[in-house]
Structure formats: C-alpha cells, structure tokens
C-alpha cells in the first residue's frame, strides 16, 4: 500500500505550501528599515515609494500565478491575485505609475535583493539567509 502512505505526505506538503510564512526582506546593509503594514502597502501598490533618504524603494513581485504572490497579497490585503491584477490594470493603462518589477522565482528574487540595496521583496521565511534582513513579517495568523 505505498500509494496510500504517500497521500497524507502530499496533503501535508500542499498544506504547508498554502500556509508558508511570507516575510519581506532586503539586503542586510540596505537603508530600508523595519516597515509597517501601511508603508509596505504604499510601496507595493505604487502609492508612495519614497524612502527616508529620498531614494525610491524598488519592490519586486513574483509571477502572478505563483503561490508566493497569492500568499503575500492574501496576507497583506486579503486580496486574490486576480484582484491585484485588476488593480494594476487600472494604474498601468492610465500610465500613472509602473507596477513592481516581476522576477521569475524566489532564487532570482534573492539575487536581485543582493544586487540592489533599494530593492525589497517577499519570500518564504525558510528561504532567508544571513545576507538578507527581514523588514516586515506578518503577525500570528
């Protein structure tokens, strides 16, 4: 009965993916300090991206179809990826502001964070290493 044994394991994996804890991180020496939920929302929704130094924060997105995208925006705004897409459709087609740059996966995201001290992005806590620093984490859920 090996197949039956695999099933609970698969379920467990699926569940852990859905509940993966997302954090927002920057390069360890970034000027970006701890952010609150409002500041983070302003940056990711393109409302206000100025940092204390006067520089512009550069948020990074993962693909709309990725589980991380869904988990991050659900945790931040209780919005689906489709709703986030509709939000950006409004802003992109009025030409007001550019959406966060999308990178292919969390490995590319880490590379980008390490390369750019003004970049910030969301990833699973388990993918952090000492070169990155957390600037926002979602509370107990």
């Amino acid at each position: 009965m090996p197949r039956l044994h695999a099933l609970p394991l698969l379920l467990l994996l699926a569940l852990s993916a859905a509940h993966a804890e997302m954090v927002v991180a920057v390069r360890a020496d970034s000027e970006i300090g701890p952010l609150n939920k409002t500041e983070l929302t302003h940056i990711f929704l393109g409302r206000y991206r100025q940092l204390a130094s006067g520089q512009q924060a550069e948020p990074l997105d993962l693909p709309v179809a990725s589980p991380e995208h869904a988990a991050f925006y659900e945790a931040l705004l209780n919005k689906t990826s489709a709703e986030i897409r509709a939000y950006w459709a409004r802003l992109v087609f009025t030409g007001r502001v550019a959406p966060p740059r999308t990178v292919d996966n969390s490995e590319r995201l880490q590379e980008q964070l390490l390369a750019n001290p003004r970049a910030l992005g969301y990833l699973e806590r388990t993918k952090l290493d000492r070169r990155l620093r957390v600037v926002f984490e979602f509370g107990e859920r």
Partner: protein
Amino acid sequence: MPTRLFPLLLLLLNAAAQADPAIPGELQLNGFGSIGMTRSSNRNAAFVRDLNQPKGTQGQWRSETDSLFGLQASWQISQQLALVAQGISRYHFGNSYAPELMSAFVRYEPRPFGSLRVGRMPTDFYLYSDSRHVGYSYLTVRPSTDFFGVLPFSHLDGADLQLAHPFGNSLLRGKLYWGKLDEDLPLADRRWQLAGSRLAGGNLSLQHGPWTVRLSSTILHFQHNLPIAEVSDALRQLAPGLPAAGETARRLDVAGSNSRFHSLGAVYDEGPLQLQAMLSHASHSTAAFQDWRAAYILAGYRRGNLTPFVGYSWIRSRSRELDTGIPRGISPDLDRLNAGIAGILADSHSEQQTTTLGLRWDLASQFALKIQHDIIRGQPGSLFPYRNENQAWNGRTRVSSIVLDFIF
C-alpha cells in the same frame, strides 16, 4: 467586428506573457479589451454607453455598445523617465471603430513623491474616470451611464502634475492638469467639434486604510458652438427688431462658455468587500446644456472567483426656459424656430435612476466574464443620455449585457 480581432489577440497575449515588466530600457506591450453583447429592451430610444456613441441598442442585441480594444506601448527609459502611448478602437464618432490615440506622453518622476506628464492623457474628471475603458479593472460591465455616460471628453493634450505626501498612516495625493481637448462628438447626424476647448482642473485624495476619498474639480472652456448654426443664424437675423432673439442666440452659444464639474467620491476596499459612492455636479454657463447632479453607489462582495454586485445611480438636470421674444402663430417659419429652440433645450434633459445587478466571474487569469442587468426608470423627458428617441419614449428600459474583459 471584435471577433475578428481574436486570433491577433491570442498571438499578442502569448508574446506579452514572455515579457518581463518594467526593466529600464525595455519596451513593453500591454493591451486590454472587452467583447460583449448588450440589449436595451425599449425600442423608442437608443441606449448608449456614453455620448461618444452615435447609435445604440433599441430592442436588439448589439456588440458595439460595450466592445472595445486597447493597446499600449510603454518604454521605461530610466527610473525617472518613461514614454507611454496607447491606442483604442471603440465604437464612437463616425459610426466606426476607427482607432484613436488615447495617450501619448512622457512621464518624468524626478523624485518618488511627484511626477510630471506632458502630452496626451486620458481625462480625469472623477475618481476612476481615467480608467473607464479598462473593463478588467472594475466590477461592472461599464461605468455607471448615469454618472460617467454624460461625460464624453476622452483625452486632453497638455500636462499634469501629481504629488503625494504621507501623514502618519494616511496618504494625501494631489493632481493638477491643464490642456486642450481634441476630438469630435456626434450630435444627431452632425459633428460637434471639441478641438481647441481648454480644460483645467485638479483633485485631492486622501487614502487611509481601506478608505479613499477624492474631491475633483474641472473647468472646461468651449471653443466651438453646437452644430445648430441655422437656428443661431435665424435668431441673429431677427435680433435688430427683436432684441430677445439676439439674446437667445447669445445664450445658446457654447463657444466661449464655461462648464464646471465637481465631484466627491468615496471608496471602501477591504479584502473581498468593495463599496463605492460618488456625487457630482455639473454647471454650464451656456443655456444649451442643463446643469445636472448625479450620484451612484456600488457594492460588491467576492466569494472565490465570483463577485456579485449591486448598484444604484441617478441623474437629474434642471430644465431651462428661454424667452425668444418671437410671437407664436404669426408664421410657420417662426413657429418652427420656436419649436427648434424648445427642442434644443429639451435635448439636454436627464431625469432617471438605474438599479444594477450583476456578477463578475474571474474565470481564468487575465479574463473576467460579466453579466449585468440594469433597470432604468426615468421620465419621458430624459433624453440627454440617449440617441434617436421617438415620441413614444417613456424613459423606462432594461439593459442586459454579457461581456468578456481581458488584459495582456
């Protein structure tokens, strides 16, 4: 006609899916569109999405009312500088889908809290009015016709300046714009030129948590008269002996007149719940248009991929009287002139309310299918929002629509 666009669209969708957005120096191609069928039940007046449309649905299903296609190219030259151009093909003036340039501007963002745009931009009279062609971005099939349909000015050639400043957990944003219109509007089978009309305005919005409140104000100075020269000329010929006729002609002039548009909008957007409420007031110094007030409320609640919504809107305008001074019953020509003027005054009357029920289904990524039913209850004199009314028009109709919105 929109169905012919489909193969092209799928190709573009594929190409766009590969593109990585907003890498400086990279050209991006994006698009949006709606393919739909709409039917208004009353045969005695044509329901249109907005006053750009010369013909509408009068008892038959039509694809023209709510179908459109837009394509945008944007080039982020550097973090501060971007070029954006957008073309739209929609059913409009000239009874055609002739493409029009909706945007072509350079955006300069010297600091993250402000940006300056110069070129052609969509007009921004009310909250959400600059995105009213992008069906995928909102819940309903079309923006409320009572509220947005009577506002047919699409784009301005000029500049706008936007600034943002945070106050604690609130964000205050302001925008100023000025420029000229450059388009034509259909009026019966004639053309009303808007080119050269000057526009200036601004808005202030406050965002706090799920709330956004925006105050908007625009003044529009018209350059050209309505295409009613034969009426104005006849009145001016009578003016030497009949000063009231000359005065009437002057008051019907739109060239040189000012219209003011004010509005207050509030949006509550929290997780699956969306609420919108807006109020507007338009006043016109010319007697050819009636001052109006309009409002709408809209509520939607998402469950999974489905978002049912319900809305209510109304528009009321104040009738104007003009004493032409021309005595009745002297000659058939003069009676016709009086009747023509009464007709012009009556044509800009709006008095109706609309109840809207609908459902948005996000059936696949980048696609949303919407069905909507509008119940319009108005007075027989509510003519302004419609086209091609006849004597039997009673101001009441039901509009059914099914639309597929997409972006890529």
